[in-house]
Every structure is written in C-alpha cells, then in structure tokens.
C-alpha cells in the first residue's frame, strides 16, 4: 500500500495544543502535493498532514479555533469551514470573503465556535476538493456525549484529472456512460439497450424531446471511499452498542444511499443541527450534506455493513461495525433507466420546461426516480401487472406509500426547538434552477454567478427564498455562514439546515434571519455545477470593508473568472480519404468553432470554416454566428454544381464571409441556415453521435448544396475511436478519430 509518500511528515505535523486559559484549540495543517493509488493507478492529489481525507478536527463548543494553513503546494489554495457561523472574513471563499492562500505561505484562521455538531471543511479553490481536500470538523457539546461515536467521511475518486472531467462534461463527452456500462449493462442507454429492453419507443421519444439520456449522475468514478478507503472497519464495537455515526458526504458530485445490515437507522441530526430522532430503513445523503445517525449492533461476533451506494448504483463503499463474520447489507439493484426515461418523457414539455402535472412536489417526498428503483416499484419483468390501475396520482411517486421500506425525506425532519424567525420585514426571492445538460450550463434564473449582481440584503430582515428546480438534475444548495429553515409541515419546528437537496420539479421554501455582515455564497455544491456558475452572492448592505480583500472589485473579477472559463475541445478523423475535424473553444454563452475537411488530393478538395457565435435562451437551442469559409477544389473543367435554390457553385477556390444561425431541432438535429458574402444560401441538417450501441455512434448530414455524409464511429477509449464514413465530396473513407 503505497498510499502516501509524505505520511511520516504528516503525522508529526499534527500539533494539537490545548491552551486551557483561553480554551484555544490550535491545529496546523500542511497542504502538500502527493501521489496516491486509490484505483489501480498512481495519480496526483493533495494531502493535508500526509492524509486523505484531511485530518478529523475536534473541538468543544465555546472553544476558539486557531488553524494554521501551511500551503506547500505550487498553487494557491483556500479552506472553507462548511456550516460554521463565523465572521465573514473567516469563511474561506477566496476572493469573496478571504484572501487566497498563495503558494508557500501560511494563513491563520481564528474564530470562536458558537455552535456544536458535525461539520466539515474543504478547499473552495477551483476543483481541489475532488483530489483530497475535504475533512471532518466536529464540535462536541459542552456536556459529554453518552454514546460512542464514529465519523464516516464519504468521497468519490476518479483517475481522471478533475480539470479533464470538467472539460469533458462541457463537451457532452459520453465516455463516462461507456465506463458505467462496462460495469452495469444498459447504463449507456443506447438504441441497442433500448431495443433489448423493448423500450425503443421511449428512447426515440426522449430524443424527440431533445434529451440525450437519463443522467442520474454525470461523472464516472473509479472508487467511492469511506475515510479514504473502499472499506473501513470499526471493529471496536460490540453487540448491544449504540453508535452515533457522523456521516459527511465530502464527495464532489456523488449522492449516496445509506443502508445498514444491522437494522433500522435512527436519524438524530442533519447538517450539524439536532432533529427529533426519526427511524428509517434508508436515506439518501446529498453532496455536502451531513447526517448524524444512531445504529445498534444487534449480535455478537459479527461485523455489520453500513453500506453507501452511489445514486447511479454503480459502486459501493462500506463501513463495517463490530468484528467477526461480515453480515452484508443487500445491495441496491441496477436502475431501470428506461422507466426513468418514460417518466421524464411525460414530464418534459416540447419547449424544454418541466411540468409537474399539478403534483406540487417538494421536500423529497415525491421521488420520481422511484420508477427506476426495483426495490420500490418491482423488477422490470414483473411489469405484466396492470400499472397505475388503481393508484392515486398523488401516491404514484411517494416512496414510503409505495413500499414497506421507509426512506427519509425532508418532511420527516423536525427541530426539537422552535425555529420561527423573529418578527421582521421579509425579503422574498424566487430562484428557478435552470440548466442545459448537453453544454453543461447550470444557472439560477438562467444567469450564472458572473452574469448577475450580488443580491443586497439588510441586517435584521428575514430572507425567504422560493426555489423551483426546472432543470433535469437534483441540486444540493448550500448557504454559507447561516442556517436556513426548510419550511415543512412542522411549522414553528421546521428543521434548520445549510444544505437543501432539491429534486427536479420540486418547489421548496427556505428562510433565514439576516444576522451577519459581509458577502455570503449560496451555491450548488456539486463541484462541477458550482464551477459552471450555479450560485448567487448575498451581500449585506453597509458592511465594513473586508481587510483581507483590499481591492474588492478586482477580487470579484477573479471569482467571476471561474464560471467564465472557456473549455477547449478538439477532434480529428484521420481517414483514408482525408482528414475531417473540428475544434471548439466555448464558455457559458459564447463559442468559437472551426471545422475542416482536408482531402489528400486536389480533386477531393480542402475546406475550412470558422464560426463565432452566442447561444441564446435557457435551453440554448439557438446559436447565431458569423464566420469565414474557405475552400479549394480542383474540378473537372465542365463540372458545375447547382444547389437546390438554383444557385451555381464552382467551389474551385472560394473564400467568403458568412452569417448564419443554428437551431437544435427535436431528435437533436442541428439545423444550420446561412448566407455568405457571395449571396449563396445553404441549409444543412446534421445529427451527430447517435448512440446505436454502447460504443457505436452514427452521424448523418445533408445540405442544400446536395452534399451528404454518413459516418460510424466505434469508441475504443476516451481519446480514440475507429471510424468509417461516406462523404459526397470525398467518397468512402475509414480511419481513426482522435478526440481531446
């Protein structure tokens, strides 16, 4: 196990120095580059004090935390204290609340601990959290806990660099789906999978509605980890022990289902705040969410599995409680993707908006995904019973009414104390979550962080936010520096949390008392959604200047840079009849794109086109552009081409400016109409990457110059594919495609 090269240095570096007079608790954290091998390959990562996850920090309510961050990386970093109530400049969002910790420097965080419970801390810089910068932050109650406890930090690991993951998401690259399909048949949701499932009609309807697949999670992870291990063991516990498990989801983009082989799970706290104990069979923990649960070890000489399964059910990680022969929890069966697709088809309008059909979904009570869960709605081959025959609409997606498995949802959480906000004027905000899966654009009210101004709030007022999720994925929304109430059926006893998971089509209301000062981030905690700009900044009016940010305007521009980032994509088909390729450079709205077709002979011709344009609308189906078009081809002397508009074209040598507009039609067919500076019209229809089978993709193109193309591509790896195509200019060709 060659886990950490710097382990020895790391352990020596944990200096925990209690100074009783001031109740000051000091930790020194050394952030270093490291090489880890979590999933068969040596990969670069960041460790703190030589370990991943970062060390578990323990405090007692009332202590003052003094934490020294020694940045020994080549790059800047930051640490955010997730869920803590602290002065704004201690919050740790670089360029917004706190100075970034430059390479080679030490930054001191110092703040009093005014609360207790389970929290965590992580880097808030770029994608650093994905490669190891997350850890548990535990504040004990002043009164000693009566139960033994154990902390479970969940995380996800990919052998791909986070930068690559992010870039590929923006290019709708489906390598993740292929990797998943290697483990679980059908996960690629190709036409072949649909036919095998007798669901081709459903698949076609899904594409008609301009959706590519049912994405339950969009990143393929090689491993899921519990405290940095695939399986962690807590063998110190014996039969009869009741254990408080502090479960922190420190993953970048993975939701986990939690189950226990030893019986029921008693939920006692969430996001650090106590709730009235509630007994369940299972629960889902959102990205960045925290649950404290109490479980019992029922019998002797047995280790009981506490199983965490990724929402896409591709892999597990577990914690074994007790010692002896291992009692397994029953694993979650694969998702019925096409059932999910059928449900989605029913819920999505042709304009791309979601329609909850009057069900008023909220607080995870109606989980449309239950149609995909075999343990709730039966296995696929049991479908011969008449479905929905007697079912009432309101129970169709209610997991707890549909089965005897009790699943936790937010309406079951009740605060043990009154959480009613003080009487004060209330500012009401409406946030609609919007997104485009294919271009991986995530926003609120169709605006990213950098496209909006800060939302000004006044100290002393109450802020109520009505959230509606009109996107096709769930979002774990996190508010910095405050607890909000999730308004539910418990009224004055609505629970306090700082992460709210909101499912597609749900409407939830959260509210908080504005009691702080400064700027506070509210964002989706799926790392790649946050980096794409899904968030808002709450800013207190008349806040004192932040000493850590001497030039706030410049700092803000740095922050905005995250979601303005351009992503690069390159593809070239090295074929027997020529080279055929494409290059793109794009961000949330803008795209620069160039395409080329280069023959090996003058008769085949050479052509290149470049476009620069902007996407419009929240679905981003409309893309007007300006461009330049250059082509050369040696034609036989008497050959003249005529298009369907009766215009002639010699194509010999031509360079022209063009203006055009692309529009994504049903079936993901891109219609491209343009006029060039010679007055020539061209209308083109094109569909790329039709998923015939797990690895086989088809492309089709036809245009008004009577040119056409059909191609097949067999994906071998994330960068290479075998390809064959027929092109009306260049004829038949075969070769391989390189994709970056």
């Amino acid at each position: 196990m060659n886990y950490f090269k710097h382990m020895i240095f790391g352990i020596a570096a944990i200096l925990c120095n209690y100074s009783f007079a001031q109740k000051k608790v000091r930790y020194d954290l050394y952030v270093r580059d490291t090489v880890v091998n979590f999933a068969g390959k040596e990969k670069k990562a960041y460790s703190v004090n030589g370990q991943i996850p970062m060390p578990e920090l323990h405090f007692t309510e009332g202590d003052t935390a003094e934490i020294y961050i020694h940045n020994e990386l080549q790059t800047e970093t930051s640490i955010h204290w997730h869920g803590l109530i602290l002065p704004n400049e201690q919050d740790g969002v670089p360029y917004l609340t706190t100075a970034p910790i430059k390479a080679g420097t030490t930054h001191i965080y110092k703040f009093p601990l005014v609360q207790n419970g389970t929290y965590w801390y992580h880097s808030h810089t770029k994608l650093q959290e994905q490669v190891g910068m997350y850890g548990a932050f535990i504040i004990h109650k002043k009164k000693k806990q009566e139960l033994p406890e154990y902390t479970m930090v969940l995380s996800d690991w990919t052998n791909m660099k986070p930068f690559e993951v992010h870039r590929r998401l923006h290019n709708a690259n489906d390598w993740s789906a292929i990797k998943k399909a290697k483990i679980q048949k059908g996960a690629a949701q190709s036409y072949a999978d649909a036919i095998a499932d007798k669901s081709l009609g459903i698949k076609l309807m899904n594409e008609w509605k301009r959706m590519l697949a049912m994405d339950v999670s969009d990143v393929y992870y090689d491993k899921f980890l519990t405290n940095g291990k695939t399986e962690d063991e807590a063998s110190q516990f014996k039969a009869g022990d009741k254990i408080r498990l502090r479960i922190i989801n420190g993953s970048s983009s993975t939701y986990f289902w939690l189950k226990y082989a030893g019986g029921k799970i008693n939920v006692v706290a969430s996001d650090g705040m106590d709730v009235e104990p509630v007994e369940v069979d299972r629960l889902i923990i959102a990205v960045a969410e925290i649950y404290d649960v109490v479980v019992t070890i029922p019998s002797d000489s047995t280790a009981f599995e506490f199983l965490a399964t990724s929402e896409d059910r591709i892999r597990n990680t577990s914690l074994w409680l007790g010692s002896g022969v291992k009692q397994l929890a029953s694993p979650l069966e694969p998702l019925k993707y096409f059932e999910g697709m059928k449900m989605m088809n029913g819920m999505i309008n042709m304009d791309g908006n979601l329609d909850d059909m009057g069900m008023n979904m909220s607080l995870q009570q109606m989980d449309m995904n239950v149609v995909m869960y075999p343990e709730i709605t039966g296995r696929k081959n049991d479908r011969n019973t008449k479905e929905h025959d007697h079912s009432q609409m309101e129970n169709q997606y209610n997991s707890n009414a549909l089965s005897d498995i009790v699943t936790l949802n937010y309406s079951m959480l009740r605060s043990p104390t009154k959480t009613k906000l003080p009487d004060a004027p209330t500012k009401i905000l409406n946030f609609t979550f919007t997104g485009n899966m294919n271009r991986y654009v995530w926003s609120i009210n169709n605006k990213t962080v950098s496209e909006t101004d800060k939302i000004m709030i006044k100290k002393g007022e109450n802020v109520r936010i009505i959230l509606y999720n009109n996107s096709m994925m769930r979002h774990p929304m996190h508010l910095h520096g405050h607890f909000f109430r999730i308004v539910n059926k418990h009224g004055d006893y609505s629970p306090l949390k700082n992460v709210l998971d909101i499912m597609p089509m749900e409407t939830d209301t959260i509210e908080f008392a504005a009691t702080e000062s400064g700027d506070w981030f509210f964002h989706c905690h799926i790392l790649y959604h946050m980096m794409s700009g899904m968030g808002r900044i709450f800013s207190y009016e008349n806040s004192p200047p932040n000493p850590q940010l001497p030039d706030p305007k410049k700092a803000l521009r740095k922050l905005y840079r995250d979601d303005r980032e351009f992503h690069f994509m390159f593809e070239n088909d090295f074929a027997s009849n020529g080279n055929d390729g494409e290059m793109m450079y794009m961000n949330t709205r803008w795209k620069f794109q160039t395409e080329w077709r280069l023959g090996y002979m003058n008769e085949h011709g050479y052509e290149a086109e470049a476009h620069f344009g902007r996407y419009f609308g929240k679905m981003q189906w409309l893309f007007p552009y300006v461009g330049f078009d250059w082509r050369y081809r040696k034609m036989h002397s008497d050959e003249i081409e005529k298009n369907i508009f009766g215009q002639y074209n010699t194509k010999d040598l031509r360079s022209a400016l063009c203006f055009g507009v692309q529009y994504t039609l049903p079936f993901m067919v891109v219609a491209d109409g343009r006029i060039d500076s010679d007055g020539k019209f061209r209308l083109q229809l094109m569909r790329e990457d039709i998923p015939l089978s797990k690895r086989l993709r088809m492309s089709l193109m036809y245009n008004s110059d009577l040119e056409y193309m059909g191609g097949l591509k067999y994906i071998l790896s994330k960068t290479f594919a075998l390809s064959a195509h027929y092109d009306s200019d260049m004829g038949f060709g075969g070769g391989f495609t390189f994709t970056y």
Partner: protein
Amino acid sequence: MKSILNLLIAIPTLLLSTSCDGQIKNAKIVTVKIDGNCEMCEKTIESAANQKKAASVDWNKDTKQATITYDDSKTTPDEILKRVALAGYDNEKFLAPDDAYAGLPGCCKYERNRKKSELKGSVTGKSEDTTTESTSVNQSTVTNQFKTIFDSYFELKNALVKTDAKMAGLKATHLTSQLNKVDMSKLENSQHEAWMKVYKDLIARSELIATAKNIEDQRTQFMVVSKNMHELAKVAKLDTAVYYQHCPMYNDGKGANWLSMENAVKNPYYGSQMLNCGKTIETIK
C-alpha cells in the same frame, strides 16, 4: 494511404487475438466452508462465484467444502465469497443479506448456524419477514404444526405485497410441502375438525399459486387460501397475535381478506399500487 488501410485491418485482428483464452493464470487454490443443502444450491453457489478467467469454484454438497481456484492478480477469495453471500449463502467470511436468503427456494433453505441470534431488546422495529424466517428455520423442534404453515403463508403474503410473482411461486411451493407434512393424528380435536374442512382446497390452491403464470392468477387463488387459513387461525393457538384484514376493492369491489402478523396494512392484492389500502377487521390471539 495504403498504410492506413493496413492499419485498419490490423487493429481488429489484434483485438480478436487477445480475447480467446479461458484459462486461469497465476492460479491459487483455497478451500472454505459454504453453507447450503442441495444440488440447486451447488448450481447457485458456483455460478455466483465463477468469473471468467479469474475464479472457478467447486462446491460439495455433502462436505459443504468449496475449492476456490482463482487468479490472485485479478481477484481475492473475499471478493468471491462476498458474491456467494450476496446470492444467499453464508460462509466463513460473509453472511448473506436476509432478503437474499429469504429468496432461496424452499429446498435450499439451509440452517443458518453462522448467524448469531440477536440480543434481546437491542434492536428496534425489525420487520416481520426477516426475523420470523430465520427463527422458524433455526427452531427444529416446532411443537405446533400449524405454526410452520402460518410462517409459509406469511412469506407468501409478503411476496404478493411486493408484487413478486416469482418469489410468490416459490413460497407457495414451500407452503404446499408444509401442508402435506401435517400429521393429522397429532392434531387436537378442534384443530382436526377445522383441518378436515379446508385442507384439500388449501393444498390444491397453494399448488395453483405455485404454478400460476402471473401475479393476478396468484392473487385470485390467494383470496381463497386466506379464507381457509382464517379458519385454521381460529384454532391454531399461535403464540403471537394474527390480524385478519380486509381490502374493500379487490374482487371487483366485493372485497377480499388476508391474514397478517402486524396490525399495519400492507395489501397483498395490489402491492405497491395501493399498499396501505384496507383495514383490520379481526384480531386473533
């Protein structure tokens, strides 16, 4: 150009040549104990454990010994034994999940000696199906003959609640065999009387459920089975309470009844479609 074409031909040939080898390399062999009963167990255990080019397992039903041959660069005995346990079979390293064990056919229900009994009072709210199953199998000396019949009946009911036709079929087979085992001479007078009234119909319908093609047919028969079981319940003298429950909608609105070990309603006639439809009409103690 030629060279590219050659390359194109070469790549698929290369791909093919590497994929026709079934031998286990770097083979290591270990023997472990896996619990099980019969030839059907052997089939299930071996097919769960075997993995192309990585693991091959030979289990002996008499000695309960499994010989595991595996490629130690690809897998570990733990991974193999975990798969066996997930298929329902306890072994030295892993215990099967309760529902995997419950899903085994009747003949494969081996005695779960490895599973330690639960400490009393330590576990809250365990659901009826898992606990009753494991205890009923473990107690080899059942004095009340009807108890085993009711245990099988409740398992059948639970399968119908889950709308699991396959499982219901298996449970009905089990029920049939339990019914056939009843020794009438050892029944008390009142029990004997009730038994004579219902047993033929009960066995016949239980067999029908076992052979039925779909869940609807199973439920139709289950309605009458439940009625007969109600007659037996009145005289069975079970040590726990049994609830007679009623769904007003089934059977074209004429209604149908069933027996349950718990007061909460879980409807076996509609399953998840209307799980909580119905009410308790009689409590038999």
